[in-house]
């Protein structure tokens, strides 16, 4: 303490000590005005929507919890989950293929990404929906011989729901593979070398050392993809896969209440997306272990903690401050 007073040189001429003076923060008048205007505009918009009779809130209320809507929701949810599972599994495989030293594996992986990322999802969905027009039967056997192990009609296998799942899953795999590849490449090669020097084989190294670290980079864009997927399932209504959007369309095709029904759909999509961000935050925390100090806090804690966090950290580290120089 003595050194700091020595450094300030001549003491202030005023009688009050610096720590007794009141602090006046900068006043952002422009910001306050902007906030009031924006808020007023929002109230106006909500009010006009609430009073608009064309919106038919009674229709919205009637259908919001209808059985038909819940059926659609169930399809949308399992379709999202299953398509993401296919996307993540196949995507990881393709990412590893594209990082392989084998030119054949690299080429095949690249070809897959090129095709499924390069054509519109809507085209792919319709394609799988009408695949029976290309192959009437699905057969598994040895090519160029008469030996078949399995044979079925394409139409009986590729129901609209399965076609939708295939289209969404394969398309997702193309995108996910790039996310996973970026994640794997973000891990320092020293990690692989260290694992190898301990006698870990490449597959074990990937599973135990590289992928857990890649997850930190992979999860945020993957959360994006999941949210996107939930909404993209609406596209499968073109092959009537009975997802939420298909059922909504079925209703407004009969009662012509397009806007109210779209409000019902939007409310449900919004609700689901909100729910989805919870596991994402949890996963980010799980894979952030050891990486950053903030990684151990939930988003809520992080918002509330603010400056308090830094002070607790300091006291925690003080016991090994002699050596911990980072």
């Amino acid at each position, binding site marked *: 303490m003595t050194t700091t007073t020595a450094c300030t040189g001549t003491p202030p001429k005023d009688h009050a000590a610096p720590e007794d003076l009141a602090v006046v923060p900068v006043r952002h008048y422009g910001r306050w005005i902007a906030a009031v205007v924006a808020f007023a505009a929002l109230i106006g918009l909500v009010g006009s929507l609430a009073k608009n009779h064309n919106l038919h809130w009674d229709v919205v209320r009637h259908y919001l919890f209808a059985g038909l809507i819940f059926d659609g929701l169930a399809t949308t949810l399992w379709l999202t989950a299953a398509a993401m599972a296919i996307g993540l599994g196949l995507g990881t495989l393709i990412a590893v293929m594209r990082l392989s030293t084998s030119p054949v594996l690299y080429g095949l992986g690249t070809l897959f990404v090129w095709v499924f990322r390069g054509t519109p999802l809507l085209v792919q969905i319709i394609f799988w929906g009408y695949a029976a027009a290309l192959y009437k039967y699905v057969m598994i056997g040895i090519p160029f011989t008469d030996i078949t192990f399995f044979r079925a009609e394409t139409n009986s296998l590729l129901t609209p729901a399965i076609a939708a799942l295939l289209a969404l899953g394969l398309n997702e795999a193309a995108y996910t593979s790039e996310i996973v590849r970026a994640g794997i490449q973000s891990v320092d090669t020293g990690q692989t070398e*260290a694992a190898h*020097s*301990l006698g870990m*084989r490449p597959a*074990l190294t990937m599973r*135990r050392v590289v992928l857990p*670290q890649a997850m930190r980079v992979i999860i945020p864009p993957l959360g994006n993809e999941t949210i996107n997927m939930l909404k993209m399932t609406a596209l499968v209504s073109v092959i009537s896969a009975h997802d939420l959007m298909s059922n909504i369309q079925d209703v407004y095709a009969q009662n012509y209440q397009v806007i109210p029904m779209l409000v019902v759909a939007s409310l449900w999509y919004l609700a689901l997306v909100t729910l989805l961000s919870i596991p994402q935050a949890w996963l980010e925390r799980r894979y952030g272990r050891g990486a*950053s100090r903030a990684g151990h806090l939930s988003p809520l804690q992080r918002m509330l903690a603010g400056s308090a966090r830094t002070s607790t950290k300091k006291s925690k580290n003080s016991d090994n401050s002699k050596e911990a120089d980072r």
Partner: protein
Amino acid sequence: MSAPMVHARGVRKHYGKLEVLKGIDLTVERGQVCCLLGPSGSGKSTFLRCINHLEKVDGGRLAVDGHLVGYRRHGNRLHELREQEVAQRRREIGMVFQRFNLFPHMTALENVMEAPVRVSGVGRAEAHKTAQRLLDRVGLGDRAAHYPAHLSGGQQQRVAIARALAMKPKLMLFDEPTSALDPELVGDVLDVMRQLASDGMTMVVVTHEIGFAREVGDTAVFMDEGVVVEAGDPKRVLVQPEQERTRAFLAKVL
């Protein structure tokens, strides 16, 4: 008379057209500490990485404990080793890196336990006990639950040494283990290495610590531009070198 721990004859290595190792001859006997010194780019780290097959040798013969690195002899033919065989051989060779390379998503204890549990199939309880003992040995018993990000460089490097020792290696490779450390943290790491040497571990150490090489090393090898310039008793090589290149290097670092 058993084979020497490391036996190199005419070892060559090139990256494209650049020749990094131009015929290295070197022998490390059991229980000896061999220090590799030389300017950066002299190939000493590359040679070290050849010993546990992180780099593939392009020419010459390199054997560890009588086994050719990367090959299996079958009659008059040499068969390249498969992934799992390479991994098998690496278990017996510990390596410590300049930049520690601890697994950041595991605690110090988990870092040390990982390979014994996943590679050697040791039970968790037993691995836990061994890992704790090794951390005690490097003076970090009370840091077992810390993640690497919460340890200093010197502490991380000592955990890395414990991690390598957990596989009970018969040979330890050190690739500039103290080069990334703040000067005041170097001593702790060198102490652990000194202790390891006096316990009889065979060690190959790439280092710029002339003092350590002189005091602990059984042989000092001076390399420059991919060849061994001078090798022998550190007290001679590092005090009264015969070669002009060695003398010039020592004049710069001392």
